């Protein structure tokens, strides 16, 4: 009997557990550990502040998505002892393993930014990366009728790098619909030099900011929040005042990763970007947002990664070389307001380009272009997530990125 231990029953951990249970015989025991018994559809959090989704739309019991033959443990990881092949939980239970898959994600960490975690959190200072905070923001937006709304991205990488952009677009649409857009100033503060990380998409998104009158404050590396004065202060002493602040706090991986010495400065697990194996311990792998990869932290990456990870991991278990190389494929819908959205598709090497997806020249989705079809795709994805993706069924799209259907002149 060989023991496979999976830490984290989020998008990546759940998919990995289900795929491996399908592929592997009963000589492999699969255990998955998570501190939460609820599985959250995290992409849905964005819609809660605007009342489009309610909490019940984005939560279901974790156990409903795990195949038979997977043992499900409810508990919080206290520490990992990689040399001893052992994981300790905070309640004192200990789990030994032969093979470990870390899928504990990345999480907003308020304490990394002085002044962020104050009494004002949930009042004039918000985020939307948990159900609780998204609901608090929904209440705050209901009350907000005029003033300066500041969306502040503190440091990359973050999970779902397009989320703060989407928030700014949806806020613009929200205040426009209420007829008070002229009373609300929207400011987007980022440590980057432009709206987004990749040049072609950034230009397009920058134009969309201008059309919507969203003011961009680039190269702003936040040092601290003065919650009393309602002011953001950068390392080079620039100040941005706000009435309502929506932050994307610094995202960090689980602290046990750092303590075990297998992570980077932000506790994301160092792995080979092609096969997710730890360079320090060959029986440790990291999937999804928990891994330090040069691509977006997004559920789509975890999803596309499964097609190479699963056969690789089976080969690894048999002592064979891992033959499949993950290309870093990610795609993200970007909600742009008024029931429209954009779609971007990219990988380690190729930036997002205009074109059609998934069928070249046909679509139905348009890359780097706003459309209602894209928005309907985003809404329909929630059903696919619960019913196809998490249970480990195949989606009708290729996991490897394709250049067909893309306008490569712009690259």
């Amino acid at each position, binding site marked *: 009997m060989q023991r496979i231990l999976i830490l984290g029953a989020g998008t990546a951990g759940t998919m990995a557990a289900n795929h491996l249970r399908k592929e592997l015989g009963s000589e492999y025991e699969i255990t998955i550990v998570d501190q939460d018994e609820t599985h959250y559809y995290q992409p849905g959090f964005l819609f809660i502040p605007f009342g489009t989704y309610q909490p019940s739309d984005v939560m279901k019991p974790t156990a409903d998505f795990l195949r038979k033959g997977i043992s499900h443990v409810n508990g919080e990881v206290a520490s990992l002892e990689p040399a001893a092949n052992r994981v300790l939980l905070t309640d004192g239970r200990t789990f030994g393993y032969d093979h470990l898959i870390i899928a504990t994600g990345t999480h907003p960490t308020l304490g990394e930014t002085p002044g962020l975690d104050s009494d004002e959190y949930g009042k004039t200072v918000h985020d939307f990366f948990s159900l609780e905070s998204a609901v608090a923001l929904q209440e705050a937006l209901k009350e907000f009728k005029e003033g300066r709304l500041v969306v502040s991205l503190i*440091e*990359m*990488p973050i999970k779902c*790098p397009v989320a703060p952009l989407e928030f700014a677009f949806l806020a613009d649409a929200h205040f426009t619909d209420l007829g008070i857009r002229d009373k609300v100033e929207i400011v987007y503060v980022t*440590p*980057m*030099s432009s709206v987004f*990380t990749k040049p072609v998409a950034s230009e397009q998104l920058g134009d969309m900011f201008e059309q919507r009158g969203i003011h961009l404050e680039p*190269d702003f*590396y936040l*040092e601290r929040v003065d919650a009393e004065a309602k002011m953001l202060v950068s*390392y*080079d002493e620039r100040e941005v005042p706000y009435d309502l602040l929506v932050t994307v706090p610094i995202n960090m991986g689980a602290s046990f990763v750092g303590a075990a010495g297998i992570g*980077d*400065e*932000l506790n994301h697990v160092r792995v080979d970007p092609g096969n997710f194996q730890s360079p320090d311990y060959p029986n440790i792998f990291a999937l999804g947002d928990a891994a330090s990869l*040069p*691509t*977006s932290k997004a559920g789509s990456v975890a999803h596309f990664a499964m097609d190479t990870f699963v056969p690789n991991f089976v080969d690894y278990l048999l002592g064979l070389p891992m033959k499949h190389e993950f290309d870093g494929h990610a795609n993200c819908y970007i909600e742009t307001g008024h029931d429209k959205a954009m779609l971007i598709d990219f990988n380690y090497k190729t930036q997002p380009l205009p074109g059609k997806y998934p069928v070249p020249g046909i679509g139905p989705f348009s890359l780097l272009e706003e459309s209602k079809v894209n928005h309907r795709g985003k809404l329909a994805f929630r059903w696919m997530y619960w019913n196809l993706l998490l249970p480990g069924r195949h989606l009708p799209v290729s996991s490897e990125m394709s250049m067909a259907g893309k306008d490569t002149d712009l690259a």
Partner: protein
Amino acid sequence: MPTTAIADKEIHVDAEGFMTEYDEWDEDLARILASNIGIDELTEAHWSVLNFLRADYAERGETPTLRRVSATGGVPTKELFVLFPKKPARKMAYVAGLPKPVGCI
């Protein structure tokens, strides 16, 4: 990759002027690159940052982020903004002859 001539030397650079060949860099070149972006004198504090960047890149194959320079290199972020004003991540990579930091995906 395009090349450009600096102080009689042909060096390989990307479209934004970041050097792409690690071994083409030397300290004299660093002084010229620094002056190109308005840093007239490289002090000891600058050199200690540049040396960390070069050594870290040699070991890991990627340009370190601001966070890594402060967490591992031991130079507070605040000081990096004083040494390489406004855009320290880009500026220090430029002077150290390293690829533009990916940092943000």
